[in-house]
């Protein structure tokens, strides 16, 4: 288990990418892990690309949690920025675990996958609860 807290994870934990809020998010969603109270919220700025596909132009997250859940959120948001909604909606738990690439027990997997769950729910939330004017065309 010495690999679990290696530099990569600790770097993302102490200096999480995309941590904060967006000035004009398209959608916002929050969820928690009831087993430990870890909470993650995500904001997306969704725009249309040249092919008229909706994609994640901007992304930000906030949250309280363990090193694994926050590092995972940081790695995930870094990975999905610029990708289309369709691609991100299809992102699997295994792909998140590959991003982390550390051995995880079943209990800690819940920590690692919380951010993906929140991201997917945020995307689902976008079509029915748009925050910004632009979103109705974007999504």
């Amino acid at each position, binding site marked *: 288990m010495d690999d679990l807290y290696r530099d990569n994870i600790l770097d993302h934990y102490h200096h999480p990418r995309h941590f904060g809020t967006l000035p004009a998010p398209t959608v916002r969603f929050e969820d928690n892990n*009831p*087993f*430990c*109270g*870890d909470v993650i919220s995500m904001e997306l700025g969704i725009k249309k690309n040249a092919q008229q596909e909706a994609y994640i132009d901007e992304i930000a997250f906030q949250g309280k*949690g363990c*090193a*694994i859940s926050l590092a995972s959120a940081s790695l995930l948001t870094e990975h999905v920025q610029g990708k289309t909604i369709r691609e991100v909606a299809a992102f699997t738990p295994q792909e998140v675990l590959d991003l982390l690439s550390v051995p995880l027990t079943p209990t800690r997997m819940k920590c690692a996958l919380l951010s993906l769950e929140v991201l997917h729910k945020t995307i689902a939330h976008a079509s029915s609860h748009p925050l910004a004017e632009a979103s109705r065309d974007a999504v």
Partner: protein
Amino acid sequence: MLPTRNDGMTTHLNLQNDFPILQRQINGKRLVYLDSTASSLKPQAVIDAVSAYYSQYSANIFRGIYTISEEATQAYEAARATVAGFIHASQVKEIIFVRNATEAMNLVAATWGRQTIRKNDEIITGVMEHHANIVPWQLLAQEKGAKLLFADLTTSAGEEQLYQLISSRTKLVAITHISNVLGIINPIARMVAEIKKRNPACSVLVDGAQSVPHQPVDVQSLGCDFLAFSGHKMLGPTGIGVLWGKYSLLESMPPYQTGGEMIRHVSLEKTTFQDPPHRFEAGTPHIAGAIGLAAAVEYLQSVGMDTVRNHEKELVRYAFAALGNIPGLQIYGPDDPETRAGVIAFTVDTIHPHDLAQILDRDNICIRSGSHCAMPLHTHLGVTATARASFYIYTTTEDIDELVAGIKKAGKILKG
């Protein structure tokens, strides 16, 4: 005579050799088990008692006339008597074997509760209770249109607040004897007396999951109406627990689960039921579990429950001193180690309990992290999760030294 260690302890329990699991090494390191509040380790005597049932007389009880069935029946009912003696029940038939404390509380809610609670009645529980002593009452109150009130016994001011909540409509107060997070020991005898003074018709259920294993418990002195506890938390097997209840209450309660063993006579038209306790023990019980629990009780009696309590008190004192030296570490619950049970929930600045528990695991130090089945309490304390270390008769000051070293190591790794 074993040499005494220079650790300031006077009880000097040296029982580690009685617990085979403590021989186990993981990655060349010994097990430092600090999660007895979740479940306790098992002495060889309990393992032997369970194995003996399965290897020598594993028959069903009550039915058979043949020898091993009689042996099993005798052992099972003798176990009931042993448990009754342990908590000073006035009658053996006040002991009902269930799966665990959770089932005991569910049994009361489903039988006594459904029968007794009416619309606009009041039930009182507490903000620091384990979910097993909250959720059954929530659902019962919802089902019956009754009101569920919460006492806050996390501070000394709470006792008076509890009494203020008692009204003529209060039918049940359901409180814990010892908090599995804060280590608070509620003065049950005094509370029951005061509650019944204010409303003699109010019943009191006590969650004894953390008290029966760790200190002397006498239901006659406590004066409560129901007591719930789990075998696996007191050196016994998993899957066995006890509901104790005053016989007059049990007699009036309808069955819980129905079927075999708990009936007197069954016809197509109607069925008559056994008296307590068998009325509440449907189907083949955890025979091995009850026998194992009796062995656990006997083991504890040989140590002496006052000794158990004193041992843990000294460990808490030792732990408070050791943990107090770690900057950024906050302990929850009473400041005075003399008044606390051997369970310490704590947080360390900027280190999430999950990460702490994970790093401690590298050195085989077992602590728990999360909400410990007490989410309302954590909300009340304003934290999302805590780490928890807990002690029992096999815990040593060396275990606590390892914990402290581990926390310091985690700090170095995680704080960057």
